[in-house]
């Protein structure tokens, strides 16, 4: 559905901006009212060890003595200026701490995505091309079992096997490239089984397609068709899935960063919940909402670029 008086691209952009605005407003509002429902927000904001004087200070600073609608408006106003308050742990601006933690998370996410794609694409394409092979059935069974592994369990088992038993790589830290291996594999284990299944489904569907019959008729070998014609199409599905799984990827980051003491937003979030550092929790939630939404947008755009057939349609729901 397009607003007729706007050019399509601009209308698209406006709609996206409105969606992101709604998501942000929704999450902020939920956190705001929960904080007030949960008891004395000053006590939550100031932390469990606050003195009565500190509580008074917080009440004044956050305007907690004002009526609720006034508080809400004021709170939105502060957030609009990117004022998330200061961390209770060290009085640094919450948003600064959060932004400082993002690069480590992005790095881990990047390495994990690379690992995921390197494993799942070839495997998925091969599985799709060999639906009846004995080995393929075995691999499919293995993937079914792997899908039953919660990510944090996989991460713990990886540490146990490769760091403790075999002593091949360090168990935690962020220093040298050797410490990057296990966390990347652990985050990848969240995404890979799903991606393999999706690529496989895409490939077997494509093999039924008309262009495959044309290629067969023109004398191309099955192998050439699979890897030369069908595989590039499967890439499209991969892009879509990775975009749609960005939210899930963040879950992986939270857990894996905690296990490996990786200094990203996931570790910061868990640390902040232990000492109820509310300004930081809130800043993380908001930046994550924005980031995940942008990744979805980007994957949509890439998909449109790769497949002009989608470009004419409205956005997929």
């Amino acid at each position, binding site marked *: 559905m397009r607003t007729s008086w706007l050019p399509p691209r601009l209308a698209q952009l406006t709609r996206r901006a409105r*969606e992101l605005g*709604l*998501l942000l407003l*929704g*999450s902020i509002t*939920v*956190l705001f009212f*929960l*904080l007030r*429902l*949960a008891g004395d927000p000053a006590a*939550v904001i100031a932390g469990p060890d606050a003195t009565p004087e500190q509580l008074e200070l917080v009440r004044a600073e956050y305007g907690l003595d004002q009526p609720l609608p006034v508080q809400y408006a004021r709170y939105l106003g502060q957030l609009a200026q990117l004022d998330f308050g200061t961390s209770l742990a060290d009085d640094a601006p919450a948003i600064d701490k959060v932004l400082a933690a993002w690069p480590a998370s992005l790095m881990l996410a990047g390495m994990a995505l690379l690992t995921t794609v390197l494993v799942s694409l070839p495997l998925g394409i091969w599985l799709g091309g060999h639906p*009846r092979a*004995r080995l393929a*059935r*075995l691999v*499919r*069974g*293995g993937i*079914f*079992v792997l*899908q*039953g*592994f*919660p*990510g*944090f*369990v996989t991460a*713990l*088992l990886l*540490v*146990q096997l490769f760091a*403790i038993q075999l002593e091949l790589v360090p168990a935690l830290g962020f220093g040298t490239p050797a410490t990057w291996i296990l966390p990347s594999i652990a985050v990848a284990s969240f995404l890979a089984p799903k991606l393999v299944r999706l690529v496989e489904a895409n490939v077997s569907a494509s093999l039924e397609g008309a262009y495959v019959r044309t290629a067969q008729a023109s004398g191309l070998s099955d192998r050439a068709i699979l890897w030369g014609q069908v595989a590039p199409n499967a890439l499209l599905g991969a892009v879509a899935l990775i975009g*749609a799984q*960005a*939210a899930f990827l*963040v*879950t992986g980051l*939270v*857990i894996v960063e*905690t*296990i490996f003491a990786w200094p990203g937003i996931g570790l910061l*979030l*868990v640390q*902040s*919940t*232990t000492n*109820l550092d*509310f300004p930081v*929790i*809130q800043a*993380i*939630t908001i930046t*994550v*909402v924005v980031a*995940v*939404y942008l*990744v*979805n947008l980007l994957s949509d755009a890439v998909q449109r670029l790769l497949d002009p057939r989608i470009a004419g349609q409205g956005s997929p*729901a």
Partner: protein
Amino acid sequence: MTAAVSPRPAALRADRLTVGLAALGVFVLLALFGPMIAPRDPQLVDLDARLLAPLAGGHPLGTDQLGRDLLSRLLEGLRWSLAVSASATALAVTVGTTLGLIGARSTGLVASAVRQITSLAQSFPVFVLAVSIIAITGNGFTSVVLTLGLVTWPVFSRVVLAEASSILQREYVLAASMMQMSEVRLMLRHVLPGLVPSLAVLFAFHFADMLIAESALSFLGIGAPLGASTWGAILNDSRAYLLTGPWLLLVPAMLVVALVITFNLIGDGIRQRVAAG
């Protein structure tokens, strides 16, 4: 794994559901009679029996770093896991189906909000929101169940929206609608039954997701009351004893995986049955 046997007879295929339900039955019995099966009080600290390997000193699965009996703790954790996941899934399916039906039928503000939330929910980091919400509302059964249920209902409304809209176009529904059947009766008599197969499949997979989410939360020390014997908490404790007590990791890890696979089997099994007609 029977996966290597080439063309499998249909009877064997359908068995996923049977295997899954049988495994679930075992887990439910273990949860129900856990307190009777448990060799000791799961919280009983025995510093002389720290980190005993399985079978040592009358502890079938060994003991943890405080000498607590691992089998007893795991049985208690199973009750928590199943109770939280069942309640959260039930909440999500109820809210998601109700709102999905409203969204499919009505044109009001609520309906359009439901459609909007449903379409955006996939690109929303619900786990991070759940962590933040539980951090604010505090630990405990109610807090975890409400949070998990209320942040995940769009999983169900997505399917209900899609399928209910198509059912609503069918002739018998249009006929019923023209005969001025009440909206609620129309939904309950004619639309909901058509949704049951999809909802059943989704319910099983969502149950597995809730198990994973709950154990991940308690692994991070969020949600379960402090000191509770949840599988996540036991796994978190195990990290300090990977060398001296690897069973503290391996036994609960196997159980979590087995329980999740149980629900995946049930979900796949129902889906196969539905597809087979």
